[in-house]
């Protein structure tokens, strides 16, 4: 039975591995993936734990629906206290690792302690061992995976690994698998690095038994047809997430030169179709019909031919618009570099763009930048800074700790130019024209982020009757309005939390397409796969439980309403260009605070953002930490 997969507790200080069943109650309350991971973090991490200490816990979890043939069901959730923000750290990774882990007999791993020397975990059909990784230490994220496969003479091994960035405890180092997939955000790679854990390699050949195999197969086909039937998924299957660029850059929703402009007027070469010059096809994660990334070849900064996958829309901003680099080729090279080193593309680009603006303003000088002239649009500066960050060399060492420590070191009003929330960089999207997006990045539990709650369909001007039906309450169809937007965020938060808990892909639910699988479809898939019955309302309550527990984690770490904030520039500097819906916009401070009040009220949190006693009782969270698993 699918629910007989185990949870394994691995203490790297003692090499002790304990396997336990996952109680049914955990599934009923938290499903799996991000849901159970959040529970584990709240229960296993003491308040005020240093994220890079052996006491931090790294939780790795497959989704409840992991393995089924639809909706990119191979997502894996990786969580720990974030070394970047000090808040909850949580990042989701696609590829093929999660199904392999489930095939090997495990749904969750809880890793604590610190190994005396570099190690990797080897997981094979019910067995977990700690293996020497001295020979892998120092290798990049691609080579590490190749070497493990060679060592064990099995090309079908799936590994999640860290690169040099994670080894050097870069606070936004990621965890990677395959050529493209990254658990990119919140510095989970640094947590692995701090534990001397280079990789987790898995091979599984046990069968996953679902409750109703034939009906499940038919319904999965229906789900795949449903998602690929949307225009958004069709476009994405051709151009990847880069397709968003065409829309947002035309409108004026893209931060350019850090935060100086909201459209990249010289960014023609970054239009998604230009990927055709380098691409020879697309590539998909496990059980995915959208296949949103390209397989490309390009000459790297040393003139050598390289193969890479991607790039994401994120990288178009990180190494294009935000740093004023105009060529697609720069994006591809920089994308490959950060992937090789294992550092987050978004955070890296955000920090480099910030440094460039500080340099322009004279806040940073050649003396601090090791003589590097941080001029806008200099691609070589971008490559060099990526290297310096990953290896913590010179000025790179300052950026490698992320915004908050870098601001403390640089001083001189540099904080005003930093576009971050809770210490994590924002995407290259400019939320000044879209109050809903702005509220989303401010309230996101893991810091500035578009994957916690972004209601991307707010940009479409959909009929209000349809929006009311979807969001179960009145919502303005005007993307510049503040009306009903807290409700949108609240709804999306719960949907994404459940999506991360069942382990399907966010691009295959209501992210950019309103007619994509959501609550009722999830409910039926869970029933067919596991036999468990959840109504739409019950699933929504689980989403609320996950989000509230994340909130409790952050409150325990000292975060509060003051941290659900936006950078000052959102209120002070109007957007200079763009279409009418995007030009001359700021976020109105008063109305923003009112949105926040409304948002808290929808959650049944008080005006400081603290969940009420009644809310906790209703969600069964009043006794947490309950230490069930």
């Amino acid at each position, binding site marked *: 039975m699918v629910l007989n997969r185990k949870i394994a507790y691995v203490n790297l200080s003692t090499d002790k591995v304990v396997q336990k069943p996952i109680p049914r109650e955990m599934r009923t309350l938290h499903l799996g993936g991000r849901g159970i991971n959040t529970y584990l973090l709240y229960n296993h991490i003491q308040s005020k734990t240093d994220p890079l200490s052996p006491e931090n816990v790294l939780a790795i979890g497959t989704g409840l629906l992991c*393995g*089924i*043939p*639809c909706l990119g069901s191979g997502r894996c959730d990786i969580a720990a206290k974030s070394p970047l923000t000090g808040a909850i750290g949580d990042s989701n990774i696609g590829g*093929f690792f999660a*199904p392999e882990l489930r*095939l090997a007999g495990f749904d969750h791993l809880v890793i604590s302690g610190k190994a005396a020397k570099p190690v990797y975990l080897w997981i094979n059909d019910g067995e977990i061992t700690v293996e020497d990784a001295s020979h892998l230490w120092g290798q990049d994220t*691609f080579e590490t*995976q*190749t070497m493990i496969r060679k060592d064990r003479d099995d*090309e079908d091994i799936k590994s999640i690994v860290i690169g040099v960035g994670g080894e050097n405890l870069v606070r936004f180092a990621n965890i990677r698998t*395959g*050529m493209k997939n990254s658990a990119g955000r919140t510095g989970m790679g640094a947590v692995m690095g701090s534990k001397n854990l280079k990789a987790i390699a898995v091979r599984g*050949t*046990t*069968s*996953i*038994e*679902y409750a109703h*195999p*034939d009906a*499940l*197969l038919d319904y*999965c*086909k229906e789900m*795949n047809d449903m998602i*690929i039937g949307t225009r958004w998924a069709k476009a994405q*299957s051709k151009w990847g997430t880069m397709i968003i660029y065409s829309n947002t850059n035309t409108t004026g929703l893209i931060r350019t030169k850090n935060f100086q402009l909201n459209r990249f007027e010289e960014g023609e070469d970054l239009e998604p179709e230009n990927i055709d010059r380098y691409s*020879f*096809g*697309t*590539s*998909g*994660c*496990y*059980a*995915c*019909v959208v*296949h949103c990334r390209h*397989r490309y070849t390009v000459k790297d900064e040393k003139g050598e031919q390289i*193969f890479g*996958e991607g790039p994401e829309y994120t990288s178009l901003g990180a190494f294009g618009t935000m740093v004023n680099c105009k060529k697609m080729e720069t994006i591809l090279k920089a994308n490959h570099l950060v992937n090789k080193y294992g550092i987050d593309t978004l955070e890296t680009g955000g920090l480099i763009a910030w440094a460039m603006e500080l340099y322009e303003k004279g806040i940073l000088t050649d003396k601090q930048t090791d003589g590097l002239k941080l001029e806008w649009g200099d691609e070589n500066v971008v490559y060099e800074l990526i290297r310096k960050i990953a290896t913590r060399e010179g000025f790179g060492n300052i950026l490698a700790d992320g915004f908050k420590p870098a601001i403390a070191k640089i001083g001189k009003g540099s904080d005003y130019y930093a576009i971050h929330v809770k210490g994590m960089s924002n995407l290259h999207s400019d939320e000044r024209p879209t109050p809903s997006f702005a509220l989303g990045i401010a309230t996101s539990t893991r810091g500035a982020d578009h994957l916690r709650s972004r209601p991307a369909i707010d940009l479409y001007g959909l009929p209000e009757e349809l929006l009311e039906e979807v969001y179960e309450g009145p919502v303005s169809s005007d993307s510049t309005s503040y009306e009903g937007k807290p409700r949108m965020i609240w709804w999306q938060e719960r949907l994404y939390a459940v999506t991360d808990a069942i382990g399907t892909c966010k691009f295959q639910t209501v992210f950019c397409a309103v007619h994509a699988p959501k609550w009722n479809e999830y409910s039926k898939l869970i029933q067919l796969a596991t036999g468990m019955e959840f109504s739409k309302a019950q699933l929504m309550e689980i989403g609320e439980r996950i989000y509230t527990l994340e909130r409790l984690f952050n409150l325990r770490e000292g975060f509060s309403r003051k941290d659900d904030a936006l950078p000052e520039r959102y209120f002070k500097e109007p957007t200079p260009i763009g279409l009418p819906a995007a030009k001359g916009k700021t976020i109105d401070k008063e109305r923003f605070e009112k949105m926040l009040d409304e948002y808290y009220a929808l959650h049944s949190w008080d005006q400081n953002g603290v969940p009420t006693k009644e809310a906790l009782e209703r969600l069964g969270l009043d006794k947490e930490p309950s230490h069930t698993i």
Partner: protein
Amino acid sequence: MEKILFIDPEKCTGCRLCETACSLHNEKVVNPALARIHVAKWETAGLYIPVVCVQCETPICQTVCPVRAISRDEKTGAVVIDPNVCVGCRLCVLYCPFAGAQIDFKKGRVVKCDLCNGEPVCAKFCDPQALQYVKATTANMKKQRAAAQKFSELMKKLLVTP
């Protein structure tokens, strides 16, 4: 032979829906190790090639089978193994140059693609159409068209590059 399973590796995105759907349909579980089809990958080069029985006209598996467990299904054209006759000697596995026959390590016998009785689930799930179940005649022309397409792209490149 009305229809064939037409494989176009260039369209494969490596998602492994074919493996997953195959095992769920045929074994009622998800386990790629039990699937009749497998996507062989060279990840660091971005190469994905679906490997499955090609239903040979003169099946080597049939020739080497000592107990005559292998025959052709007249309706679908698939080369099939009679599980009641198969003794699990694995000679077919040994001799097939296309790795079309697999060891079912759970039941100690040999299994292979039987085209799902004329409705191959893998092709049904393959949205990029790297796997298509098409008429044999159509398949020829598809292949020719694909070749012509490549030729025309090459010509374009030659014409613009001095």
